[in-house]
């Protein structure tokens, strides 16, 4: 009669299997980052980063992202508040529409934006008549970033507004404060943590935007060339500069991720302290 393997040995074997899989995946994920830092002429980086080419790229990146983020926050916040606090037919459809760019391939976003705004496009003709041409301008970069990055903000913002106890807004109203001021004085401050977390993600996505931008705005240095497009262009002419931009973006991304995690844990600690105010589930809205 064969003895069954002891359970202890089975458990150890399983753990070893898990560790092996994790080891392979994590090594693969870390490899490009390690390669980037070992291949990049780290000593040259300060010099490379001061190159006028990169200065131009940085200016374009910051300018377009600043505008795009203004659009995302300025239009996304009211949209999220509306979708979070009102129930109406078609709401689920609108939420899906807001989220769609998350799963849309960037190339499709690019071709879609072209179809909408280029000459002969859906809005292109009236815009042309008004003397406005958007494709291959800095505005095109802004629109591309807004299109692909806004869902990251709006999704988080909806969740943040939904997490605010609706009775706090009710309380505000019975205290004589109208809906707009209630939004400003109660909902917005209480959702602020979630809004910032969403914005950090949207910002990161905007900085990394490549596919839609190159199709809709092109890769014109000083006009539409952002950091990611810069890496792509410098690949052949100045590989070191590409690597340097890469290092810069890795550091930026890590900082963004860290910021997001810090904001998230800060929010958790805040929400635990306010959870005493959560309504019991049996109560009606």
């Amino acid at each position, binding site marked *: 009669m064969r003895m069954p393997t002891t359970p202890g040995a089975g458990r150890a074997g399983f753990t070893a299997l898990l560790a092996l899989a994790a080891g392979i995946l994590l090594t693969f994920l870390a490899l490009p980052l390690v390669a980037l830092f070992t291949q990049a002429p780290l000593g040259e980086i300060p010099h490379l980063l001061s190159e006028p080419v990169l200065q131009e790229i940085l200016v374009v990146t910051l300018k377009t992202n600043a505008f795009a983020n203004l659009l995302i926050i300025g239009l996304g916040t009211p949209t999220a508040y509306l979708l979070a606090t009102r129930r109406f037919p078609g709401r689920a459809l609108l939420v899906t529409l807001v989220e769609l760019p998350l799963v849309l391939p960037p190339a499709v976003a690019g071709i879609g934006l072209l179809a909408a705004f280029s000459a002969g496009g859906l809005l292109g003709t009236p815009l042309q008549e008004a003397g406005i041409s958007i494709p291959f301008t800095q505005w095109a970069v802004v629109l591309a970033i807004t299109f692909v990055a806004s869902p990251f903000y709006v999704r988080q913002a909806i969740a943040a507004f939904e997490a605010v106890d609706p*009775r*706090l807004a009710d*309380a505000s109203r*019975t205290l004589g*404060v*109208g809906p707009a001021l209630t939004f400003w004085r109660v909902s917005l401050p209480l959702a602020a943590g979630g809004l910032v977390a969403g914005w950090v993600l949207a910002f990161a996505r905007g900085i990394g935007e490549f596919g839609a931008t190159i199709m809709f705005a092109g890769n014109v240095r000083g006009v539409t060339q952002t950091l990611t497009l810069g890496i792509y262009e410098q690949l052949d002419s100045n590989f070191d500069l590409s690597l340097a931009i890469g290092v810069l973006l890795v550091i930026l991304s890590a900082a963004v991720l860290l910021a997001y995690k810090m904001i998230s844990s800060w929010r958790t600690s805040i929400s635990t*302290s306010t959870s005493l*105010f959560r309504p019991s589930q049996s109560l009606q809205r």
Partner: protein
Amino acid sequence: MVGPSGAGKTTVLRAVAGLARPARGHIRFDDRPWFDAAAGVWLAPEERSVGLVFQDYALFPHLSVRKNLAYGARSDPARVDELLERLRIAHLDRTKPGTLSGGERQRVALARALARRPQVLLLDEPLSALDAHTRAEIKVQLRELLGELALPTIFISHDFRDAIALADRAAVIVAGKIRQVDSVESLARSPTDAFVAALTGNNVLRATASPGEPRSTLTLEDGQQIEVPARAAGSVGIVIAPGDVEVLAAAPTDGDPANALRGKVASLTRLGRRIEARVGPVEVECRAEDAASLLLETGGDAWIRLPEEAITVVPLDGSAATAAEPQRTLPASSTQRFE
């Protein structure tokens, strides 16, 4: 307004405050319509003058106690100071609500509601979120405060004892309908249906009535009978307050005294000079001075008497008599499901 959970109490408060819009009916304050379905009148919450204290207080967690009070549209620093003093929360003025105790939160919520000088005060289960000790304390403070304020106040509770402690008049609400509105004493003394009778702490004994003139005979479920000087028929409830039941020192002889019942003492609690017992199906309350009470012994038999003048006969739910049951439709109620 007293009723079981799910009766629609909170919905009524929300309708008065303007947070829920009923399908029909009207709400008026001082002849000023706040809501009138027929006329299409609807004032937003901020246009009404109500102070609503939410069941779990709904204090703004991001604002200090002082800023919670100062939040209201018409509150001014002097008013805030006055309320901080009056509700004894001045020492907490810089504290955020998250660290306050239940009793403190309640006082802050009350002060915040009063800060805008409302014309109506609405309290949603003001005592339910508190532990027993705080509850008793707050009840006393609340009664004093409500007396001083002299504001029309609607408060809701599932516990009739809260109504006894705090209210002059009470409405019993069940499943969206008001069953009876009266002074708190009258509700307990002359309930018009079995639910109100039980809610106000009375015994409700099931019996079958055989009508007679001028007296009717009521047969209890165990076959014992009592008589009442009223006409009753069918399935009825015999309503009597525990304190009105008498404990007899001896078994009745030849039906004297009348309306005596025999039962086993199921439970017996002596609280100082007060004695609470359950004899058969009847809750009895008597005082230790009462000599007959000495005969009560858990597990033993006892004789009790239901004095006919203390008995109210009500129709039982589901019987034919229920059709005559007084029911009033709540003006503010809507067709939607409550709570």
